[in-house]
C-alpha cells in the first residue's frame, strides 16, 4: 500500500497560493476546499470555469489564480478543457513549449453544471479519455442565483424552489457512481473540512493521467442558512453522520477512505442548518428524519 504523502495536518502546505480578495461569501465551504486544492496543484494549471458562484473568482481585472483561467457556459467546461488540452498538446508536439512548461487542465464547476447541464459534456470528455482534472464544488443547489434546487439537492432540503412542508421531494443524484460507471482514471469525494484526506486525494489525482474527477462538498452559509463560522463543523458533520461518504474509485474499485466510527445520527447534521429547520419546528418530522437516516444506514450497510 502506498504511503500517503501527507500523514498529519502539520504536513499540509501553508503556502496559500490562491489569492484572497475574491467575491465568495464569508465562510464559503467551496472556497475553503479550493484553496486547499490549489496549494497542491500549484500555479502550473489552467482553470476552465463553468458559470456558477466561482465565476466571480475572476472578475476582470482581478483573479486569485497564478495561472490562466477560462470561463465557459454552464454545460461546456469539459469541452473547453478538451480545447485547452489539445492546444497544449499541439504546442508540445511542435516544441513551442517544453514538457516543464506543460500545464494541468482543471475544470471547476458547481453542482448545477456537474450534476445537470454539464453531465453530457463530462461524459463525452471521459469517453475521449481526456487528460484533465474535474473539480465540482457541491453546495447542493444553484447558490449563485439564490439556491434553487439542482440535481445535487438532498431529499427534504428547503430551497428557493422547494418551499413546501417537506422541502425538496427529489433525491440527490449519485454523481460519484455516474462518473465511476464511465471507468475513468480516478473519481473521489472530498471535503474542505477534512483537509488531510483532501490533500492526499488531490496529490494522488495529480500523479495520474486521464480523466480524474473530484466532488467537494461545499457547505454554504448563504444557501444552507447557517452562520458562516459553522462551515467547517457542518462539513465535518456531513462526514461523521455518513451523509457525505469520503471515498475514491481507482483501478476499478471503490475504496472508502474514512469510515465514520461511530456514525452520528443525521439530526446532528440536519439541525444545524436552516434549510432543514422545517424538520424540527414547529414539531419534529420524525418520519422524514427517519427516512433520511434509513437511507444513510442502507448506504453504509452495503459498505461494511
Amino acid at each position, binding site marked *: 500500500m502506498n504511503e500517503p504523502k501527507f500523514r498529519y*495536518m*502539520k504536513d*499540509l502546505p*501553508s503556502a*496559500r*497560493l*490562491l*489569492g*484572497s*480578495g*475574491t*467575491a*465568495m*461569501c*464569508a*465562510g*464559503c*465551504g467551496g*472556497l*475553503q476546499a479550493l*484553496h*486547499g486544492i490549489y496549494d497542491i496543484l500549484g*500555479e502550473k494549471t489552467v482553470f476552465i470555469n463553468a458559470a456558477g458562484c466561482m465565476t*466571480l*473568482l*475572476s*472578475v*476582470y*481585472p*482581478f*483573479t*486569485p*489564480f*497564478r*495561472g490562466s*483561467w477560462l470561463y465557459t457556459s454552464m454545460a461546456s467546461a469539459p469541452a473547453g478543457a478538451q480545447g485547452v488540452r489539445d492546444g497544449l498538446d499541439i504546442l508540445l508536439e511542435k516544441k513551442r513549449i517544453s514538457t516543464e512548461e506543460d500545464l494541468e487542465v482543471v475544470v471547476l464547476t458547481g453542482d448545477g453544471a456537474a450534476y445537470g447541464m454539464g453531465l453530457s459534456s463530462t461524459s463525452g470528455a471521459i469517453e475521449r479519455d481526456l487528460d484533465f482534472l474535474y473539480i465540482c464544488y457541491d453546495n447542493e443547489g444553484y447558490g449563485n442565483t439564490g439556491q434553487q434546487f439542482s440535481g445535487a439537492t438532498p431529499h427534504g432540503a428547503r430551497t428557493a424552489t422547494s*418551499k413546501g412542508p417537506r422541502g425538496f421531494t427529489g433525491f440527490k443524484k449519485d454523481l460519484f457512481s455516474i462518473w465511476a460507471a464511465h471507468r475513468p482514471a480516478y473519481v473521489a469525494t472530498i471535503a*474542505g*473540512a477534512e*483537509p488531510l484526506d483532501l490533500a492526499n486525494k488531490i496529490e494522488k489525482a495529480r500523479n495520474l493521467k486521464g480523466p480524474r474527477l473530484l466532488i467537494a462538498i461545499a457547505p454554504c*452559509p*448563504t444557501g444552507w*442558512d447557517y*452562520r*458562516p*463560522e*459553522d*462551515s*467547517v*463543523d457542518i462539513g465535518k458533520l456531513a462526514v461523521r453522520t455518513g451523509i457525505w461518504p469520503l471515498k475514491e474509485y481507482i483501478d476499478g474499485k471503490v475504496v472508502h477512505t474514512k469510515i465514520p466510527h461511530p456514525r452520528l445520527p443525521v439530526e446532528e447534521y440536519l439541525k444545524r442548518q*436552516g434549510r432543514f429547520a422545517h424538520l424540527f419546528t414547529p414539531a419534529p418530522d420524525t418520519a422524514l428524519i427517519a427516512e433520511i437516516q434509513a437511507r444513510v444506514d442502507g448506504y453504509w450497510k452495503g459498505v461494511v
Partner: protein
Amino acid sequence: MYRIRFHGRGGQGIKTASRILGTTLFMEGFEVQDGPRYGAERRGAPMFAYVRASMEPIQERGIIRLPDLVIVTDDSLIPIPAAGVLTGVAERTVLLINSDEEPGLWRERLALAGPILTLPAAAHAPHINTQLTSVLSTGAAANLIGVISRRTLEEAIRKELAPLGAGAVEVNLENGLKAFDLTVVLKGSVREGGKTQAASYDPPDWIDLPFEEAAISAPAIHATATSERVKTGVWRTMRPVIDYSLCNRCWWICSTFCADGVIRVDEEGYPRIDYEHCKGCMICVAQCPRHAISAIPEHGEDTGERQE
C-alpha cells in the same frame, strides 16, 4: 420626485427594505422604481438599493446620484469610501443613520450642514433570519417622507414579507411600526427633489481609453493573484483576534480552515491574520482548539491591536 438611497451590508435586508418602501409609495398613488444594485457583493459586503417615486412618469434610470434621503442601516459603512454613502449628499439631503451616537457627533464628524437623524433602536437590533435590520429604517423613512400613512406601511410590510411566514411578518411589523411612531415629530422632513436634465448631470469619473487592437484590449489578465487588490476586509463587522499567549502554533488548523486563506504562517510558526482581506466569517474562532481566537466588534471600544 423622491430619490431615496439605502446603504447597508449584504444580508441586512436592504433589497427588501427598498421594496417595502417602494410598495408603500406605490400604494399611496406614486409611480415607483425600486431595486438593489446587483453585483458580485455577498453577505457582509457594502451594497445599496434605491427608490424613486413621483406622481409623474419617471424617466430617470440607473443609480441615484442626488438623493433626497439617504438611509444607512450600518454606521460602520460611512467611513468606507467604497461604500459611497455620502455620494451626492447635499444640504437638503436627509441622512438617517442606524446609530446610537448623537446626530450632532455625526454632523461634526462628517462636516455636513444638512439634517442628520439617528435611530438608536436600530443600531443594536439583532439580525436573525426572519427579522430584518433594515425594517426599522424603512418604518422611519416612511414617516420622514411624510406622504405615507401608518396603515399603508402596515399593509406593505404584510404584503412583501408574507412569503417569510406569519412569525416574520409580526416581528418586522412590530419593529417597522415602532420606528414609524418614534419619528412622528419628524414627519415630512424629506422634501421632493426637482426635475433633473441629462444636460445638468456631471460627467462620471471615467477615463477615456483609445481603442486598441484585440490583442491589447481583450480582457486578459497578465499578473497573478490580482484579486488581493480588492480589500474584502471592509465586509467584516466582527474581527477575529489571536491571543498569542494562548496560541500553541497549530497553524494547520486555523490557517487551513480559513475559507479565504488569509491566515498566513510566520517564520516562527505563528498564524497571522491579514485584516485587509479577512471577511470576518469566524471559522478560525470556532475551530481554534485552545480558544485563543476571539471575536470582537469591529467598531467598538476594544479594537486595540491585541494581536501585537
